[in-house]
């Protein structure tokens, strides 16, 4: 019995979830449309005065990215929980953390990556300078996976609970604040010309990404075992 | 140090007594809630015990 290698298993789970996401393409776009809509609401609320919008842009985009990924996290485990496939995954002879990491990566590719790709377009809406847009996109690229991973812990903890979606955000948002701070801080630093501060913000984001990559799958697997009991 | 001056608190009475007032009010509420929870739980356990017999 040739057990799949860790890498093959990871790819299997990621491909499985992406295949499922593609079969229900609407879900992919709801997250994206939600993100664009939330971002576009702000100029309507705040007024179109360019100087103010440029200053607010990183905060608005990052908070919208945070909310958009919270929105789709509820389905990370619940779809598999309902039809019993999650049980089978927990019985797989490989470590559950790898499977959970795979699901987190797939969730990021469906709900995090599109936000990163579309961020420059929205950056124009806020008249961001090109370097600022670059740093914003890079920050989102480093930060959104962390949102999916920390959110994965929340999704596992609130599995099968009524009011899961709101409860999930309530648990996870405080934990995502550092990511929000470093992500927006980098853009703020570049537009204020403080290049070293920008680099250190991005470095901290990258550090949080590595930290989450190592820890969150295991914690999320423990949370799943607790929830499935 | 008569009482009027004490409550005036150098013009900052509102803030000082606003802070301490709410603090001890909140303490009082918590104590009341905890005692209420205790009597409620005791009553439930008693009802359960009678039902059990």
């Amino acid at each position, binding site marked *: 019995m040739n057990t799949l290698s860790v890498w093959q298993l990871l790819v299997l789970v990621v491909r499985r979830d992406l295949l499922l996401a593609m079969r229900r393409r609407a879900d992919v776009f709801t997250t994206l449309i939600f993100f664009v809509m939330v971002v576009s609401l702000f100029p309507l609320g705040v007024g179109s005065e360019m100087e103010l919008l440029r200053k607010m842009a990183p905060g608005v985009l990052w908070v919208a990215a945070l909310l958009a990924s919270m929105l789709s996290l509820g389905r990370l485990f619940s779809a598999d929980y309902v039809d019993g496939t999650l049980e089978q995954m927990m019985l797989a002879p490989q470590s559950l953390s790898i499977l959970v990491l795979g699901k987190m990566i797939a969730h990021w590719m469906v709900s995090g990556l599109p936000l990163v790709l579309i961020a420059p377009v929205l950056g124009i809406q806020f008249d961001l300078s090109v370097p600022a847009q670059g740093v914003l996109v890079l920050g989102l690229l480093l930060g959104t996976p962390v949102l999916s991973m920390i959110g994965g*812990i929340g999704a596992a*903890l*609130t599995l099968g*609970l*009524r*009011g899961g979606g709101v*409860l999930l955000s*309530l*648990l996870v*948002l*405080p*934990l995502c*604040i*550092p990511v929000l*701070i*470093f992500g927006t*801080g980098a853009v*703020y*630093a570049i537009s204020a010309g403080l290049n070293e*501060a920008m680099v250190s913000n991005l470095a*901290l984001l990258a550090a*949080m990404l590595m930290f989450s990559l190592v820890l969150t799958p295991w*914690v999320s697997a*423990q*949370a799943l075992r*607790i*929830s499935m*009991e | *140090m008569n009482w009027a001056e*004490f409550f005036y*608190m*150098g*013009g*900052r*009475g509102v*803030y*000082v007594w*606003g*802070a*301490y007032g*709410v*603090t001890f009010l*909140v*303490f009082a509420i*918590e*104590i009341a809630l*905890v*005692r209420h*929870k*205790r009597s409620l*739980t*005791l009553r*439930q*356990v*008693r009802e*359960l*015990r009678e039902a*059990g017999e």
Partner: protein
Amino acid sequence: MAINWFKYSAPSTFYGLAGKLIPWFALPAAVLFVIGLYIGFFIAPTDAVQGEAYRIIFIHVPASILSMFLYLIMAGYAALGLIFNTRLSSMMASAIAPTGALFAFISLWTGALWGKPMWGAWWVWDARLTSELILLFLYFGFISLHASIDDPRRADRAAALLAVVGSVNVPIIYFSVKWWNTLHQGSTIKFTGTSMHVAMQQAMFITLVACWLYAIAVALTRVRSIILERERHTKWVADLAEVKA
């Protein structure tokens, strides 16, 4: 003689022990509050810079300290309950959470009331106050997760995991907020005066101890109710004097 600590880890024996201890914490707490505030208001001099408003620190600083340490203690008990499967430590964790949240709220409230006369604004996005606000959110997260799960065992274990993850994040949150604060506002605002008069330090220390005693008394009372609730089907609860009465 070696005290057999595990004897007290059984809910039934702990229930009795806690019952005896509560007065020993509650009464001294009240007494120390009175002494601490007496020193704070009648002996400590008026501050040269801040006038009388600074006297709020005698409750604000202890509350902030309490809110932080109670979260860590809660996370510690929760972790104990998670690892060693001891129900009593999980009960202690959920007994501490509301009191911790309460102190976080008091810290924010008194911080705001102190900020108004000091810096002219009810809310100042200062690193310490902002982290306190996030700590309050973490408390709400713990309490609401625990409340939304019906099965007590799963509720304890899920909330415990969240508390442990939260406690790992508390320092990260604090430093990122500090970093964010310096980035946007230059320097953080110094809270306590440059040199504190000895009476001020005494008063704050006494009120701090008073807050600790208060927190322990309340937590013990709450844990006794939780024990009663969780062990309502057991025989020892049915035989309790107060249940029979």
